[in-house]
């Protein structure tokens, strides 16, 4: 954000004996739905915590734009970069070129197809799909009619969907009714769910590929007056949903963590690695790969995941 403006914060003013104030770029997907907006917000928050570095945040509509951003950011001389890839494979070559320029790379959530990141904070979309599906199986006692709400065709969506389907296929009692796309969009999810409610007289559970769509579905269900027959599980740890879980809302018995705050973790790691010019030493103990656990949020632990002032 504004912090990133290297002119206003005279770039390269020494902060300590070790040398210059490090400049770190952040490349993330554009805020085109709730979760990505959350990423942007957490990135802003995290950079504010680290004035000892210069920050530049850039968002990209698609992978083509993102690799352009990476090049352009690199061209203005940066020491490190935190990347949340729009898509893994397409961004990999560009990231590799940054690596070759000697730029410190923290890769968050979606892993590159080659081992080039100095630190990889691994998100696990398959676990997202698997755990939420397993919860459904467990809560329904392995039998029930499930409606799936997909996002937009992409690796993220495919990973979550296929992991979930694997679980459901393994459970004879579970019948997957349909798997239409809610396009990560609350309004679209609402429309799609309305159509589904008209098509299927009985739906027991809705598995949504993220919380935004789950909330859209909720509106549809309430308008159809079927709130007592259907419950849902989405994912992402959106505060509205976590709140509902916390309050024991029947429609939202649980949620899956996939917090956009993960970008903040990445930013913190980048800052702490680069700020004192002790990168070499830090690398000695810093793990190259950190897998973020995907957890089940239940009324019991919901308060730990509730961030009322987050935008997501």
């Amino acid at each position, binding site marked *: 954000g504004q912090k990133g403006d290297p002119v206003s914060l005279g770039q390269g003013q020494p902060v300590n004996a070790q040398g210059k104030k490090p400049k770190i770029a952040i490349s993330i997907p*554009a*805020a*085109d*739905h*709730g979760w*990505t*907006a*959350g990423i*942007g*917000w957490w990135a*802003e928050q995290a950079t504010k915590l680290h004035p000892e570095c210069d920050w530049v945040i850039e968002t990209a509509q698609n992978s083509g734009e993102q690799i352009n951003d990476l090049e352009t950011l690199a061209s203005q001389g940066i020491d490190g970069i935190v990347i949340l890839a729009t898509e893994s494979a397409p961004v990999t070559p560009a990231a590799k070129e940054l690596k070759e320029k000697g730029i410190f790379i923290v890769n968050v959530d979606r892993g590159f197809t080659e081992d080039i990141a100095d630190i990889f904070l691994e998100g696990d979309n398959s676990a997202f799909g698997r755990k939420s599906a397993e919860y459904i199986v467990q809560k329904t006692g392995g039998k029930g009619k499930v409606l799936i709400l*997909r996002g937009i*065709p992409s690796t993220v969506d495919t990973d979550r969907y296929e992991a979930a389907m694997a679980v459901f296929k393994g459970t004879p009692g579970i019948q997957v009714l*349909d*798997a*239409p*796309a809610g396009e990560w*969009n*609350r*309004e679209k999810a*609402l*429309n*799609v769910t*309305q*159509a*589904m409610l*008209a*098509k299927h007289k009985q739906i027991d559970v809705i598995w949504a590929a993220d919380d*935004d769509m789950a909330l*859209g579905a909720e*509106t549809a269900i309430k*308008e*159809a*007056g*079927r709130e007592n027959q259907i419950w849902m599980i989405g994912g992402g740890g959106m505060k*509205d949903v976590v709140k509902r879980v916390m309050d024991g809302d029947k429609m939202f018995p649980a949620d899956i963590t996939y917090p956009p705050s993960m970008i903040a973790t990445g930013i913190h790691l980048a800052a702490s690695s680069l700020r004192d010019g002790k990168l070499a030493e830090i690398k000695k103990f810093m793990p190259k790969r950190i897998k973020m656990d995907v957890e089940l949020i239940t009324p019991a632990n919901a308060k730990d995941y509730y961030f009322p002032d987050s*935008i*997501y």
Partner: protein
Amino acid sequence: MLIAFIVLMIGYAIWRPDIVLNPEFLPRLVNQNAAVGIVAIFMTLVIIGGGIDLSVGSMMGLTASLGLLALNKLIGDGTSQSVATLAAVVVSVAVGAFLGAVNGIAITWGKIAPFIVTLAGMAAYRSIATVLAAGGEIRSSSSEVFAELGRGGLTVPFLVLERDRALIITWPVIVFFLSALVAGFLLNWTRYGRHLIAVGANEKAAIYSAINTSKVKVYSYVLMGLFAGAAAIGLAGRMNSVSTSQLGLYYELDAIAAVVIGGTSMSGGRGRIWTTVIGVLLLGLITNMLVTSGLSVYWQGAVKGVIILLAVLIQRGHSD
């Protein structure tokens, strides 16, 4: 497109009577497409006038955001929900009309191509909306009254649906029909309509005919913005929140598509309102069919493309 629409409808009804013959089906279809319908109707006027408005989707994001901020501010200050809701509507509509005027003036007085002006607007208005909430959501603090903007409406008497609910013609649907009436009336029964057609068909000749072409154009953009503001606040009510990055996203494209499929020519000077309405419902129907078809989401685009072409061909087969 009426024939195409009817053909598709009948085919759908035969295939899935359980869905189509449900009394809720049509009202829901219309309700789901009311917002884009409103936009498409006034986009038709803009296009007939020889213009185009790419900014309307972003504009909706911005007007709804400001409307919601006003709502929350007022409720925060202890105003009643109803008054605050009314204020939200007024703000959204007023801002829409204002931004429409900005577009129109930049085009006529600034003499910049509509495509460029509204392309800039598309980028700018969305951006300002995201600034208001860091790209995130603005949540309404009036869960009862404000949400009624999307859900509420006029109840159809004596008709009771399953789980004894009443059938409601929602406000967005009512505004949708009002828009069609207003636009149709303007276009076919007023001096303004004639002038708009003249300007779109042959601006030079319109000037020679002592028509104030700038005024005619500006009005078309103002109307566009004004009703887009109304559509936007309705959507916000439906979600009882505004996602600054999503509300209205790509509505301009959906609207233009509906207008063109409705048979209005992009080159201006010719066009009808009711065919646009059918165009909107046709696209909505296609989407609905695809969703309920259970067809893999990967294939849906391909089928959609084919059906659109078929619809146009069916139509031609009958219209001449």
